[in-house]
């Protein structure tokens, strides 16, 4: 744990040095691309959309790298950007859907976008999709990513107490969904 922390500090220091910033950022991409991808993918579901958003996330991070002062953790900063990008994408899709433009159906994307697994997993996915967006985020981060409440709190800017309540509510709703569809 201490080694990871030291490594992170060293990476942040290299990001601050103009001579090493590009190499350091390449390492950031390699280190965080997978976890960011899955976080984005669980929100937008489509692989193509997740791929685009992942690229945008890193591009935004690169364009603002000198604004990253190292006060927050690097992973927190990147997760924030990824979530904002994902939510903006979903908003855009919703608007297109409302205005009747040719946009992929969110529900259709949810059911078909490269989803594997058995019936239980499919049902769980559908249950998560019924949650409000904020609860989805909290549930995904806690249940699938096994993140600490303190870390989620930093990313979402919500108190730990509120997150616990939100997660509890999300679990209740999912259980209710299973009961209703059983």
């Amino acid at each position, binding site marked *: 744990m201490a080694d990871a922390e030291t490594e992170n500090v060293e990476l942040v220091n290299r990001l601050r040095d*103009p*001579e090493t*910033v*590009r190499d350091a*950022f*390449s390492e950031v*991409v*390699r280190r965080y*691309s*997978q*976890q960011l*991808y*899955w*976080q984005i*993918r*669980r929100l937008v579901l489509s*692989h193509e959309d997740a*791929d685009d958003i*992942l*690229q945008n996330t*890193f*591009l935004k991070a*690169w*364009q603002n*790298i*000198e604004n990253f002062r190292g006060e927050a953790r690097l992973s927190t900063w990147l997760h924030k950007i990824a979530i904002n990008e994902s939510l903006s994408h979903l908003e855009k899709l919703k608007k297109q859907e409302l205005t009747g433009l040719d946009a992929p159906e969110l529900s259709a994307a949810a059911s078909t*976008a*490269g*989803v*594997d*697994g*058995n019936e*239980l*997993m*499919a049902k*769980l*996915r559908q249950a998560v999709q019924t949650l409000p967006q904020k609860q989805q985020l909290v549930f995904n981060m806690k*249940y*699938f*990513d*096994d993140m600490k409440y303190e870390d989620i709190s930093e990313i979402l800017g919500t108190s730990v107490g509120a997150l616990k309540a939100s997660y509890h509510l999300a*679990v209740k709703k*999912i*259980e*209710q969904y*299973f*009961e209703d569809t*059983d």
Partner: protein
Amino acid sequence: MAKQKEILEEARLQGFAQPSAGMSVPEGYFDAVNDRIIASLPYRPEAEERPLPPRTIWQKVRPYVYMAAMFAGIWLMLQMFAMMGSPKALTPMGDNPILAEAFSNDDFVFDYLYDDLSTYDIYNELYVDDSSADDGFDDIVSPHDIFSTQSFCSDTTI
């Protein structure tokens, strides 16, 4: 309901409680996407170039100091030219000790200055100065008359 409560635990046990649960990506996707993202990062001089050290006060004011010095130099040069070319630079004749001494010497004045005067000038001066018959003339005569008399006299002399 008790069964439903266990559903999430069951999913966890089945290995679904993980980031990629139930989703897949094309093979080798992450290697490819990493390379693609890294290759697409634009060059950013503001992040990738060391900023210039801050300018000192002297460096900031130096152009203005140089400009002021240049204008002062030009002004001084113009002043110098003006002094050299001005008539004030010449000493007035009255202040010239050599000339003063010369003018105080009657011999010099008569020999050097008055010697050059023609008869016409002398008579003309007398006429202008309103000279009277006491000066050797019975009537006031014009220089013209004098000259005509002179020519008559000379004619008779001859």
